[in-house]
Every structure is written in C-alpha cells, then in structure tokens.
C-alpha cells in the first residue's frame, strides 16, 4: 500500500476530515477541516468519498515524498505546488510516481490549503473522525518529518475532470454575512452599529480555534457573567476584556462570554481563509 512520507510540515499541518458528530454532550467538539468547502473539493476532484481525510496545510511549507505511486489534488489557499521542482496546478488531478517529492509554497492569499490523496489519509480514527482537534488534544498527532502517512484503498469511482475551476480563495478584505444573536441584547445599540459600520482585522493570535479580531470596542449594555453555554462555529464571542474571537473548527464546545452575532454557514470557509492582516466587514444576513 502506498503512503506519504512527511519531509517538512511548515508552520502547521494537520490531518482533517468532516469532523466528529454526536459527541458534543461529552464535551467533544466537531473539529474537521476549517475550510470545509476546499476540503470537499479536493476529495471530489479525486472521486474520494467526502469524509476522506486530507492534510490541512497552514501557510504552505509542507513537503512530502510519495512512497509508491500516489494520486493527489491541492485546493484552498493558492499555494505554489511543485513536484520534483517543477510547477503544478491547483485544483487538478496530479500523479506522483514512487519517490516524487511534492512541495507547497507560501500562498499569496488565503491561509489554508488542502492536500487530498486518492484513497484518503488512513490514520486510525478517534471517536469516528480522523480530525485533529488542537484545542481538545484529540485525534491524530500532528504530522512530523519522518512520519509515514498511510493511504487508504482507492475508491471505485474514477476522477471525472482533470481540472476544476473555482472562485479565488483569500482576499485582503472579506465580507462575512452574520445574523445578530444569540446574545445581542448584552450589547448596546451603538455596538450593533459599530459591528456593521467598522472594519475588523484578523490578528496573528489566530488559529484553528478562532480568528482573533482587532477593531473598535463592542460596548456591553449589561454587567455580570453569562452562565457557560453551547457555541457554534462562526460565533463572534466578545470577552469582557480583549479581542473578539470568531470561532472556527476547533472552538470550545461551551463558552462563558456573550456572542453578539454568528456568521452564516455558507461564509465559514471564507472566515477560515482570513489570514492575519485580513480586514473583515460584517454585513447583516437576512
């Protein structure tokens, strides 16, 4: 059976799939690919089932060597792809002969690229998923140089298209549609206006748990502590002091600060591709 030998991981590479469902009552979050859209596309290009695990590569820097012939696809943030030093395309079926080295450079835009392998990365699942939850410390260990990532059996279906055109991923300024709530009543009218009138900037203290945002203060209309309550990805949580956090895939299952608004599901992949320095404009979603 073929495998991928990890040579370098860049700032952060993790194994991800569609996440863990049904364990939230035990305090286990969903995790999974932060940009579920690019993850799904990478699998679709290779005719993998949607739940096949891929490598989520943050700001490039991944190098792997094919052990045996391997078919791959790279999607998401436009990372420069090279196979044995020669340029290759994103969103395309790529064949790696035994021993070939694939490297991903730093993307000019966006944050997370996805390397899918035909057959899926076949590390043992934990609670029904191969996703690494960096907050909970659950799932496969972070890949390290020297690791051999096993590849599962190829699906029966064959890839149908050699290349799939996509909308560009990542931008200097992005628009995210949000709906106020569940705790908009913990904030003043002025905070509601500020949320929609001003720009927020993603700070370097961002990770798979959430994008931390710098921007104008969102003023509370009441004091006191909110009893901890369940959180969803896309929640914009506003701590008493400090930066608001836009929760992503590895967000805590419950949180004790009020959520002023939640990003609609369709815009979560856009939020996941907002690298530090990206300006975010929130717009009302109806």
């Amino acid at each position, binding site marked *: 059976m073929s495998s991928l030998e990890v040579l370098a991981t860049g700032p952060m590479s993790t194994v991800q799939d569609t996440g863990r469902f049904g364990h939230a009552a*035990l*305090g286990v979050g969903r995790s999974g690919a932060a940009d579920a859209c690019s993850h799904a596309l990478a699998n679709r290009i290779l005719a993998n089932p949607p739940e096949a695990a891929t490598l989520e590569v943050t700001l490039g820097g991944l190098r792997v060597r094919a052990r045996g012939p391997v078919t791959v696809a790279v999607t998401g943030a436009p990372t420069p792809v090279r196979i044995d030093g020669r340029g290759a395309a994103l969103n395309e079926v790529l064949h790696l002969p035994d021993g070939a080295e694939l490297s991903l450079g730093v993307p000019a835009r966006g944050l997370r690229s996805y390397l899918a392998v035909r057959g899926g990365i076949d590390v043992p699942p934990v609670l029904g998923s191969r996703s690494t939850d960096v907050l909970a410390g659950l799932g496969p260990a972070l890949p390290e140089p020297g690791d051999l990532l096993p590849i599962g059996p190829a699906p029966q279906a064959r890839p149908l298209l050699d290349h799939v055109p996509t909308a560009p991923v990542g931008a200097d300024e992005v628009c995210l549609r949000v709906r106020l709530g569940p705790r908009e009543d913990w904030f003043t009218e002025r905070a509601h206006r500020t949320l929609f009138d001003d720009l927020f900037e993603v700070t370097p203290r961002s990770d798979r748990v959430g994008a931390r945002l710098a921007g104008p203060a969102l003023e509370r209309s009441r004091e006191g502590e909110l009893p901890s309550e*369940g*959180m969803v990805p896309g929640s914009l949580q506003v701590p008493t002091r400090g930066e608001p956090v836009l929760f992503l895939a590895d967000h805590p*299952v419950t949180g004790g600060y009020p959520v002023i608004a939640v990003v609609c599901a369709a815009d979560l992949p856009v939020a996941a591709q907002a690298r530090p320095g990206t300006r975010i404009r929130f717009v009302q979603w109806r």
Partner: protein
Amino acid sequence: MRVLNCADTGVLVEVADLDQVIALGAALETAPLPGVTDVVPAARTVLLRLSPGTDPAGVAAAVTRIPLAADVTRRTGETVTIPVHYDGEDLADIAELLGSSPREVVRAHTAATWTVAFCGFAPGFGYMVGDDPRFRVPRRAEARTRVPKGSVALAGEFTGLYPRSSPGGWQLLGHTDVVSWDLERDPPGLLRPGVRVRFEEAA
C-alpha cells in the same frame, strides 16, 4: 423557555433552571429532532446544532412544543464513586468562602450526592451539581495557567474534575487518581450527563 438564534447553524434554547436543562436534554435524547446533529446542554441553555440546510425556524417551533416534565430530572441508573485526596491548594479559601472549616467542607462534599448536569470546557469535563445548597463559590479572580490532571475543583454551584492538565479558574479542592477520560474505553467519558457521583476520602 426562550429560543435564540445562532444564524443557520444552531438554535439556543434558554430555560429557567438546571432541572429544565436536564429535562429538555433527556427529552431530546429520547425523541431526537430531525436536522439536529448535536445537543449541548449547559447551565441554563440547551444548544441544538443543525446539519447544513436545516431550517432553524422549524427546529425552534418543534422544540417549544416539547413539554418539560419535572419528574424526568436527574433520573439515571448509574452511580460512580470517586476517591479524592482533599489536599487542594484552595481548600482553606473554599472553607473561608463557605464560612466553615476545611474538615467540614470535606465532610459535606463527601456526604452530598452529585449529578453530572452537562459536559464542556474539555472532553470528559463534567459539571456536577450537588444536593447540598451550601456549595456555591466564585471562580478564582485569576485563572491558573496550569491545573493538573485529576484535580477536583469547585466553581459556581458545580464540582468539576479536570480530565487532563489545562488552564483553569476553578477553586482546587483536591485530586483523584480516577481516570475520567480514556479513549480506550467505550464511552470514553466517566462523567456523562445524568450519572450520579459520590466522592469519598481517599485512604
């Protein structure tokens, strides 16, 4: 009951008290609502997480029709006993907050029956409520950057058991050698919602 929206990814149901949380959680376990992937009970709320394309308004309407029967509260078969070394760094502070002595705190903590109301914070971290109303302490003013695995701690009306080392702001009462989270076990969590817990002083 008040139903709050979380865009199109969730429905947050706010109820009067923890008994209603447990009742609603139990009702949703018995009769799951279509389109709901996860149920997250917490202190005063139950969050329903939705699968893509589910209409939150439909789920909101369905959940308001669920009767919150008072008699389903805190009903479960399982009881676990957890031996505790009551040597926590905050034991003296806890005793002072409760207007009591460390010895009396230990006696009352082991005399009470605790029930896991919900999990959160970390996998396997159960929030346990007791039948002794005296146990109410604030969180520490400043959180510790590292609370050791196995710590038994208090905050609000809850006792918690840290399944692994993590930052934490709870008041440390003691520690246990009981492993509360083990992925080799099915289910991995010892402290699941509804489980009753007795603490005893470790020898």
